């Protein structure tokens, strides 16, 4: 029972951090509950499918199916998170104005919600498939599911969900005018961490071997298999022994998101810039 509790808690905790952030990011946007719930449901369904086909998936692409699948969905999540941040940079101000004007106004944020729902689904799918595989293994070993296992899993799920709730409640205490900045930063680091994880999968598959040397080792300070290490790994992609290519991917993702956000930001009204620019041109 304890094993089931621990592993379910650990995986729900990791997915819950991401879901909590996304709930905070979309706070006040009409219909977000449905989108996030849809993302969770799709993720759970996907987790079962992935767990069911682990054998087949592993054998694809000469045994690298699992790595390529993981790298692929992680890259997709990076694109969705980037897109969300860029969208918010473009429409965030208008969104905030609408929210302030009408409280629970119907905001035209559904496109961005879809991107975030996909991120939720991917997070739940990744962590959930491990839960399904593990619990299935326990059940198979025992010759059937036991009440202890079900109870352990249930308690793990509740505790993990509390982390999700705490993340959300913690973030929404941030005053609205800072919330956009904080959540955009969180999402950028989340995306960078996912990009670095995708690199690790490509390295593990032997597809990407360039710049695979370890740049530093901070396992003496904070091991990435410790509780805090795992939380930071989920949130900002902390690893105690990153490779050079991982660091490049991490930095490149941050720079890319920041650049795109700047490029697509709502143009701020530029008073008396006309004559000046005319002169230099």
């Amino acid at each position: 029972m304890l094993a089931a509790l621990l592993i379910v808690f650990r995986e729900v905790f990791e997915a819950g951090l991401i879901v909590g952030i996304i709930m905070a990011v979309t706070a006040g946007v009409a219909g977000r509950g449905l989108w996030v719930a849809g993302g969770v449901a799709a993720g759970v369904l996907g987790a079962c499918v992935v767990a069911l086909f682990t054998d087949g998936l592993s054998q694809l692409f000469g045994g690298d199916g699992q790595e390529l699948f993981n790298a692929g969905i992680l890259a997709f999540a990076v694109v969705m998170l980037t897109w969300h941040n860029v969208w918010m940079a473009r429409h965030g101000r208008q969104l905030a104005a609408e929210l302030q004007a009408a409280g629970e106004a119907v905001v035209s944020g559904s496109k961005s919600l879809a991107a975030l729902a996909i991120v939720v689904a991917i997070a739940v799918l990744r962590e959930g498939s491990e839960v399904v595989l593990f619990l299935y293994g326990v059940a198979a070993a025992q010759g059937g599911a036991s009440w202890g296992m079900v109870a352990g899993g249930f308690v793990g799920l509740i505790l993990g969900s509390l982390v999700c709730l705490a993340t959300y409640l913690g973030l929404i205490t941030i005053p609205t005018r800072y919330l956009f900045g904080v959540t955009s930063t969180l999402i950028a680091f989340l995306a960078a961490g996912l990009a670095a994880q995708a690199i690790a999968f490509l390295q593990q598959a032997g597809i990407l071997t360039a710049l695979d040397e370890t740049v530093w080792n901070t396992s003496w300070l904070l091991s990435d298999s410790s509780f805090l290490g795992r939380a930071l790994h989920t949130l900002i992609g902390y690893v105690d022994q990153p490779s050079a290519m991982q660091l490049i991917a991490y930095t490149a993702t941050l720079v890319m998101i920041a650049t795109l956000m700047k490029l697509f930001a709502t143009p701020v009204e530029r008073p008396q810039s006309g004559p000046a620019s005319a002169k230099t041109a």
Partner: protein
Amino acid sequence: MRMNFMHVRPLAAVLALAGAICVAGAQAQQNGEISISVKDHQFDPAEVHAPANKPLAITVKNLDKVAMEFESGSLRVEKVIPAGGTGVVHVRPLSPGSYEFFDDFHRKTRGHLIVP
């Protein structure tokens, strides 16, 4: 014309880089190979040795009736090996040291890779 040329150059650079990475990948294939099996949640052998500074391919055979996840932070690998299945992970050239690996689904199942 000039605009076109400026667009082509970065593309060529990206292709060249991709090519270089593929070549590096192909070269890395034939180096140190290690086999480990798991039975009754024990690695066999629980201590494996590998040459330094050579890319490694570690083959993990899961002889148990339940799935396992072969994982190591220092080796930077994590791979689910289905019940009765086999998986291969690739590891960068390692400097001398001891690298721990474990089954993430059964954390007490642990082993070490020693690079002399």
